[in-house]
């Protein structure tokens, strides 16, 4: 290949000579690369948008809820109600050492939360201090419930974002002020701005979190708990512990250990793996569609180059007669093909990047949302450009080999 200004001028000339043809052919490639990058960026943004819902939520968590039995056991009929108690918490802790946290939650729904003249409905959640291992709070003000609050049964609360904005419309640090929740006054010690949409008995937004013993006393809950949250130690899959937890609870509460419905276990690990599979599938689909579209575009380029070569038989014959080697012709056709794909593709990359930028700006303009990243990475763009070059070579292959087979004699025969 001769690297000469004229080489490039010639390529540019021959592409510009058939403006509309080059434009239409290039559009296929342009659209292909645009689709691929835009879908990749969009898919990535979508994934981030959805995973933002799980923000602050431990991925290795299970939530255990007692349910009605569905199998008869030891002379007892099915359809029996049973309840978990505080001793179950201790039992799980001691019998399943692989569990890092075992913490109960009690809730009371639809409580009136009052601060002065501002009123809002919220849910009370009674927790121990280690509940923050399950649902990580994003504190805007103050602190979370601690061991001392629990031990001394202090009447303190951490309020969710919606509660805070409703009853403190003027904003500011509410810590220290007293608010009334249901029948009792509590001192606000923190504001949780966690925006995750996973909710254990109500979302963090609308919750008033209070030390569990306080809730128990105020609402006369007795010994029963609604649910227990557990997390596994790092490196331990919670699903591998599920069976043992079922066995322990069944033995204690006298129901059939094989009765899966008697104990509802929600395993977040499974949910996350479902999500992961979903996005793997989505990415596969995106690649399939994107690459398919590019391929269609490239085949278009190949086709048009084929026509071009046919049209230029005489010209190629003349070049051969006056001393062009087959390699000269080959490199000319392939360079033309690469140029067409690369130029069209670069516009596609630029257009995709611009549009993703716009999308990102619009999506991130939502109030109080965590920023989402739609933009494809620099290296993705570089790989796309490399892909285009390779595809350009491939597209030029068939036309170039046809051009190479043109004999100089053909130039003279064509009259």
């Amino acid at each position, binding site marked *: 290949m001769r690297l000469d200004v004229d080489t490039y001028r010639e390529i540019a000339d021959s592409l510009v000579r058939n403006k509309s043809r080059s434009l239409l052919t290039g559009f296929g490639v342009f659209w292909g690369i645009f689709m691929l990058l835009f879908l990749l960026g969009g898919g990535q943004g979508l994934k981030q948008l959805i995973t933002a819902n799980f923000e602050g939520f431990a991925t290795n968590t299970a939530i255990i809820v007692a349910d009605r039995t569905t199998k008869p056991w030891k002379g007892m009929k099915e359809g029996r109600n049973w309840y978990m108690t505080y001793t179950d918490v201790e039992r799980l802790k001691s019998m399943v050492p692989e569990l890092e946290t075992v913490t109960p939650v009690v809730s009371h729904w639809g409580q009136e939360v009052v601060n002065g003249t501002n009123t809002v409905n919220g849910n009370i959640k009674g927790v121990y201090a280690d509940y923050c291992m399950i649902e990580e709070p994003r504190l805007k003000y103050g602190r979370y419930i601690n061991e001392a609050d629990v031990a001394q049964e202090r009447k303190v609360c951490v309020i969710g974002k919606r509660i805070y904005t409703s009853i403190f419309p003027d904003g500011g640090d509410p810590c220290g002020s007293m608010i009334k929740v249901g029948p009792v006054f509590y001192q606000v010690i923190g504001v949780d701005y966690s925006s995750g949409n996973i909710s254990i008995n109500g979302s963090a937004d609308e919750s008033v979190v209070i030390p569990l013993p306080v809730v128990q006393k105020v609402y006369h809950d007795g010994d029963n708990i609604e649910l227990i949250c557990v997390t596994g130690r790092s490196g331990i899959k919670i699903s591998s512990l599920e069976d043992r937890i079922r066995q322990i609870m069944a033995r204690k509460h006298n129901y059939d250990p094989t009765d899966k419905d008697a104990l509802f276990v929600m395993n977040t690990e499974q949910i996350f793996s479902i999500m992961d599979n979903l996005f793997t599938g989505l990415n596969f689909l995106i690649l399939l569609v994107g690459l398919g579209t590019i391929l269609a575009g490239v085949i278009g380029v190949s086709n048009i180059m084929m026509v071009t070569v046919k049209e230029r038989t*005489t010209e190629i014959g003349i*070049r051969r007669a006056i*001393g062009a*080697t087959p390699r*000269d012709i080959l490199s000319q056709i392939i360079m033309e093909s690469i140029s067409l794909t690369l130029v069209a593709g670069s516009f596609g990359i630029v257009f995709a990047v611009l549009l993703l930028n716009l999308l990102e700006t619009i999506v991130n303009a939502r109030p109080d949302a965590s920023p989402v990243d739609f933009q494809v990475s620099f290296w993705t763009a570089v790989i796309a450009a490399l892909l285009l070059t390779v595809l350009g070579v491939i597209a030029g292959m068939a036309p170039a080999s046809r051009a190479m087979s043109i004999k100089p004699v053909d130039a*003279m025969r064509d*009259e």
Partner: protein
Amino acid sequence: MLIELKDVNKTYNNGQPLHVLKGINLGIDSGEFVSIMGASGSGKSTLLNIIGILDNYDTGEYYIDGRLIKNLTEKQAADYRNRMIGFIFQSFNLISFKTAVENVELPLFYQGVSRHKRHEMAMQFLDRLGLADWAGHYPNEMSGGQKQRVAIARALITQPKIILADEPTGALDSKTSEEVMQLLGQLNKEDGVTIIVVTHESGVANCTDKIVHIKDGIIGNIEDNREHRASVFGTSTIMK
């Protein structure tokens, strides 16, 4: 001998095998101005293609300057064509989207001559053929005679030993034909370039010093025409 053909045979195998050249023996010395004459289908163009290394022959031997031209790779053939042979075609065969000077430059481009140098040389040759003012024009802006002169400049620029002209006047009127033939004769005398013209016009053949008659793939008589009296139509003009 610059060009030497020994018992060259060529058969085309397109369905019905066609034996086009039936044992051609021909020698052309350096500096000769030769025409190959024959009716259409006589094999004269095939012979020219073989001499120009544009086509292969089946049996026999062909030497240029003592070098056997047989079983060359495409690259070698291209290189020989580029350096030893200049072509002039009936239909000029200029590249339509290149200007006159770009067309003339092209053989040097394939030789790898630098951009500046080849432009300079192309201008020099165009100037010599009186086309310096037309250097920037495209072929379709020029007359037939001008186009053929551009083609001649392109053939000359590599300073080849041999110029092969295939019906160089076929698309020109008689006046321009005469000019072109005079130009070729002048090049032959002044530069000593060996020129081989293929034609079926006796008037054109008469301009050359030696006329090789070919008929049905066999060389008939070889006329010495240094007196330029061969034309049956008279010696003063090229009859069309």
